[in-house]
């Protein structure tokens, strides 16, 4: 990551108050640059063609469409960008749905400006936030069988599965690194990989479903 170049941020958010807060937070740090905002999904999709950003912050509750539409479009158009869902509650159903569409992180809307830039920097350095409930939900997603905890999900590497299981039990990254005998820095990248795999997995499943139902032709 070129540290001399500021990180470009694009915001998709219909709530002007939060938009203003976020703009202020990003502006307060010289390492970031806000390159554009959109208040609707249509605007966001249009801007996506003209403006490239490193990080897209997307609210799920847009007036004209679900935020996941924007997330999926960004993932297609800008595969290297990080996509962050902004959510009030950080509840696992919303977040996991976004991850499946291609999001690599999430932010709570009440986050302080200081925390916000810290999180975005972490994200750009290869980490992804993950709460225990989200980890649990991901484990269930990847293992749709009844014996949810009997075997590690095949999609993930054994190490990734271990990380996910420990997160789901409430352990922090530092504790997990100690338990697995690795450095703390490697854990966030595992999480990010898990997110990526889940997104790819979900899309290929979606394609399979769609072809099965005759919606698309392979």
């Amino acid at each position: 990551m070129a540290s001399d170049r500021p990180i470009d941020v694009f915001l998709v958010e219909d709530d002007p108050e939060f938009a203003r807060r976020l703009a202020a937070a990003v502006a307060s740090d010289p390492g970031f640059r806000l390159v554009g905002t959109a208040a609707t999904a249509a605007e966001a999709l249009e801007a996506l063609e003209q403006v490239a950003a490193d990080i897209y912050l997307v609210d799920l509750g847009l007036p004209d469409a679900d935020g996941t539409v924007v997330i999926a479009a960004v993932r297609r158009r800008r595969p290297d960008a990080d996509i962050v869902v902004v959510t009030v509650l950080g509840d696992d159903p919303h977040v996991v749905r976004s991850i499946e569409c291609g999001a690599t992180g999430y932010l709570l809307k009440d986050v302080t400006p200081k925390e916000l830039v810290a999180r975005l920097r972490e994200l750009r350095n290869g980490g992804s936030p993950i709460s225990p409930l989200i980890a649990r939900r991901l484990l269930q997603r990847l293992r749709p069988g009844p014996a949810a905890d009997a075997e590690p999900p095949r999609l993930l590497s054994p190490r990734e599965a271990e990380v996910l299981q420990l997160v789901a039990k409430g352990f922090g990254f530092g504790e997990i690194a100690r338990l697995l005998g690795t450095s703390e820095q490697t854990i966030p990248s595992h999480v990010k990989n898990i997110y990526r795999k889940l997104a790819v997995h979900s899309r290929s499943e979606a394609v399979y479903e769609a072809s099965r139902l005759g919606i698309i032709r392979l």
Partner: protein
Amino acid sequence: MRRAGSGSSGCSAVPLLVGSAAIEGLRRRLRRAGRALARGVGVLAAALAVGAAASAWAESVEVRTIAQAQFVESASETLPPDDAPWTSRPLPDRVVREGKAEPAVLWYRLALPDIGRDAAGAPLMLYMQRLDCATRVFLNGSLVTTLESPARTSYVRWMRPHLVVLPEAMLRDGGNVVHIRGLCWERVTGLGQVLAGPDRALRPVYEERFFWQITAAQISTVFGCLAGGFMLLVWWRRRKEVEYGLFGAAAVAWALRSVTFVVESVPADLWLYWRAYYYATTGAVLIFLSLFFLRLAGKRWPRVEAALIAYGIAGPLALLLAGRIVDPALAAWWIGSFLAIIPATLAVLGAAALRERRTEQIAVVAAAGFALALAFHDFLLDRGVITFGRPFALHLGVPIMLLAMAWAMTNRFVGTLAVAENVNVELARRIREKEAELASNFARLAEFERRQAVAQERERILQDMHDGLGSQLVSSLSMVERGVAGPREVATLLRECLDDMRLAVDSLASEPESFLAALGALRYRMEPRFAAVGVRFAWRVPEDGLTDTIPAAARLQLLRIVQESLTNALRHADAQEVSVAVSVDDEAGAAALRIRVEDDGKGLPENGAARAPGRGLRNMQTRARRIGARIEFVRRDRGTRIEVRLPLAAQPA
């Protein structure tokens, strides 16, 4: 059946007399048919006719029938002299010895017609269709052959025909005389048809007769054993189906009876028993048959059945008790009476067949009627109404009847199987119905339970909004209105509201293991705040996670207690490390969830929780009480320990 010249007559009754080649072929075919005796009624009926037809043909070519004989009854070992009381008799000749215990010695004298010498030098033969006696044959006064010793120690009853060689050297030109001496035990005896001719002409006649009288009886025996044995096995496994047993018994008895046709010579002192055996097996066949007919007709007349069985036993018993003196009467009346009993029981079956039109009944009636006709034929033969020497026929008809009965019983057997299959199908259908019913009941029940759960959950969330977020917003509002709270305080208050809401949302995850994750999510949210003031966090949870279900109502309260504890530690403790330990312990024989929050800070105020607890501690106590948990606040040397214990026993999932 006429003889010479009938080859061109095109006799409509026996159209088989057309040419010798055709007849040879036919006979081969018939012999094959005979080997497979059980094949059918038509073949047998035709074969009976042809047996006679063949001899007529043999006669017509180069065979001479000896139609006349002289007869005398004389115990003489040597030829009776010419002046003995010879009487002239036409052949076949039937002799009845009424009421005599001793065997009779019969002499027949035959004038051999001049049939010339065979060009190929083949020997001249004498064919005797039937001769029930121990016999010697003389040609021109010299002994030619002995058919079984004429000693009085052997009882002989030939069922087979005889073919005797008349040696060339002993033949004279201008008239030959044959003497036949027979030692006869049978009540009805005599000499059947006698033919003279070359071997190649008489051998087929002999073989034909031999087949129908001896081989057929053997086949009949074997067939009866197999069919009867099988049916008895079926009955053995299904005692209630008496018809199988009766049929099997009849078939086996028939087989045993047929033995008397095959064994032609027994020691004379065993004759009585042999005869009794004949009566017993014959009676058994007929009684079992009549019982079978009644049962197949669906009649159960215990008295009639008992009477029939008693009557069947009476015949052989009478012979054994009274001796051979009653034999003629038994032969005439006891055997003869079955010619009434069998038709009577068959008529009962016939009436049932007409009424119910069941094919098995009709088939048995038809076959039994045929066999009955043959039996009547044999009876008439025995009584001398039919020409002496005609073959006995019943042993040909009975296998046919047995076949029909076997078919009927198989029909019934298959029908039973079909019924069983139908029952299975019906059963499967009913089970499916019940399953569907059960499934719909279950679905209704599940729907009911789901609705109830939704209602309970709604109530719980309402209660929670009331106690948690609602009251928090109210107190925040009042602080803002009173002007007590500055922007920082308001932000803190609102953030607490949000935390509370997230806690409520997290507590909604309902899988057993998710409680730990929800607790983890609380820690995950709070950890940055601890980190901001330099407090370490220790997390101690079971290796395998939590497998016990924490009741829905308890989850949120526990989360709140932990949140409150952590908040207290963060705000007041001035600690360096905070630890959360979760475990499931055995407490008085039941599982209990234990959550312990410890800090190494300042500790609780002196007087502890009991007297002047903070509002937070009181809240925690209230929450614990509400879910039936115990909570302890412990002042340690350094810091505070808050421990909650929730019994998990008898909590359904």
